């Protein structure tokens, strides 16, 4: 929204998820819970009451046995750039500036202690990436002992969501500063917990504006697409798949329309 302070290097962090590689194992989800002090309850099967910063969906091509195919789709917060780079659907609606678009990183922030729980952002987000704390979080037995001091546990009545592990960016920036070159944050210095956790290497994360980072090239792939791209939300999360049905399942198309990667071809 605002102009960048002149001393800050502009980055645009993004993620590329290879759907032809994701095995649906949910390591990313669990690593995320653990990294970000996500709360849990004994009843988590009602998914619309369950807090997940990244959620792996299972989608099928709808064909009968044995031509059935399955694709797993991990979906974190899309960290949308939104309209005019800086107006994601959720940010402009938050009445109390509890969520904001961070221009220097392209990350959509969330301040739970500022949030008063109106849930307008939740209604605005087409990805259901925003989760509400319907209950007071409780860590049974001695589980409070494993909580990380990097991410504050949220209280009841507020929204939370994926922050691209922003605390890890802060840590990387701090370390870079101590090393004397505050702007020199390498690709490996800042990786999200889910990226690191993906045991099959389906997730790639980095600065999408930096040619040295893998995401820079990956997102330019012909088979790259974004979830519900046509809504104009400009997500910072890209997906890769060579399968046309996957592209079709991830955005809305009128009957005669074709996903961009396959337009004009009969694949």
């Amino acid at each position, binding site marked *: 929204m605002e102009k960048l302070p002149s001393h800050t290097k502009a980055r645009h962090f993004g993620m590329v998820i290879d759907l032809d590689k994701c095995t649906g194992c949910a390591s990313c989800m669990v690593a995320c819970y653990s990294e970000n002090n996500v709360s849990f309850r004994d009843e988590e099967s009602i998914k619309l009451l369950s807090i997940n910063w990244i959620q792996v969906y299972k989608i099928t091509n709808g064909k009968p046995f044995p031509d059935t195919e399955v694709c797993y789709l991990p979906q974190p917060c899309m960290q949308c750039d939104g309209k005019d780079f800086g107006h994601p659907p959720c940010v402009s609606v938050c*009445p109390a500036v509890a969520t904001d678009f961070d221009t220097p990183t392209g990350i959509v922030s969330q301040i739970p202690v500022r949030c008063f729980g*109106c849930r307008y952002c939740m209604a605005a987000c087409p*990805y259901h990436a925003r989760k509400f704390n319907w*209950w007071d979080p409780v860590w049974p037995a001695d589980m409070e002992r494993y909580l990380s001091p990097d991410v504050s546990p949220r209280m009841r009545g*507020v929204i939370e969501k994926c922050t691209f592990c922003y605390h890890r960016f802060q840590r990387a920036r701090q370390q870079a500063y101590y090393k004397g070159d505050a702007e020199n944050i390498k690709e490996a210095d800042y990786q999200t917990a889910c990226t690191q956790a993906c045991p099959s290497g389906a997730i790639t994360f980095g600065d999408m504006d930096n040619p040295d980072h893998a995401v820079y090239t990956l997102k330019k792939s012909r088979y790259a697409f974004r979830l519900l791209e046509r809504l104009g939300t400009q997500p910072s999360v890209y997906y890769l798949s060579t399968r046309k049905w996957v592209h079709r399942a991830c955005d809305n198309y009128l009957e005669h329309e074709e996903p961009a990667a396959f337009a004009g071809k009969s694949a």
Partner: protein
Amino acid sequence: MTTSAFPEGVKRCSSGKFILWLLPAFLVLLIAAYAMFRVWFYGLNQTNMNDAYGFAIWIWADLAVIALGGGAFFSGFLAYLVGVKKVKNIINFAVVLGVVCYTSALILLGLDVGQPLRGWFIFWHANIHSMLTEVAFCLTIYLGVLIVEFIPVILENPKIQKIRFFHHLSHNMHEIMAVFAATGVFLSFFHQGSLGGVPGVLYGRPFAFREGLFIWPWTFFLFTWSAAAVGPLFTATMCRLTEFITQKKLVKDDVYELLAKISGWMLLTYIIAKSLDTIYWATVTAPARGFAFMDFYSNNPAYYGVWILIAEIVICGFLPALILITQKGRENKKLLFGAAILAIIGLCINRWVMVLQVLAAPLKPFQEEWFVYSPAWTEVITTIMPIAYGIVLISIAYRYLPLFPQEKELNP
């Protein structure tokens, strides 16, 4: 001679009967208070809302009562700014109704937020880009205005009138009522509109999203216009209901007819605009995002499909509008109030669609199912609460305040 607590020259029922009449309403209020306690103490897990239905029946009720309470601002606009004298005969009642609607809306909002104790962050940390901020500011200030408009009516109670300061105060406030009314109209225009903007700006939600003018989506104007159109009809209908309950004529028929005529034309223009908006949305806005019109009306688990649109636009839109703009329709009171009720239902359907159906519609093609929600008892009782609360406030106001200037004349 002791002064009667009742307005001069009118008859009121006995205290016993009055209390008996209020009893059921108090009972509802009591249960609602318990529900409110549960929601505030244990949190929103006491409702059936979920991450798909972040907005639910409360927000619908909010939008609906604010729109219906719009009768206050539009009658004020007519009476004080345009100078339609006849409307003054119903303006006091409209103000009371407005107070009921707006305080109810604020209570529901207070229930609906997850952290009510820091709800004031909406003012302190205001994000002026948010439609909700606009709503909160205008709504709160307008409620203030409504109360200011209500004060002189209260002060007209004979007992209060005996106090000289209040006597003068009510007189002076009446004198400059136009200033308050103008401010109210200004604020109402924005908050009614920004309530429409709330769904309209959601460009992630193709069912709600509308293009518009500057920062305001078309729903902004449609909501204001529909509130102005239907609000007075609601005032009139409630007034008629009061007449029915008190078994007294309180307002002359020509007042109703005038309101109905104005509302009829407003409603007609509104519904034409709404139709144009729907057509543009269905043929341009939604297809650009890959949605066919019927995508929004198929596979809905509530089974109403496209009928909800037909009900809103034709049965509860064009039909009452056409009845109200014809003189014959207005002269027949059954037709008039039938049409008014249809229009009120239409408005409620519109708000329902713009809140709940927006959230119910699946967005990701791989998630074909609609999201289903049914309110919990805590939500239902608190949503009914405004009715009980309205009964209490209006009954007390009617009993002790000269709401209807024509009452004395009509009931000699």
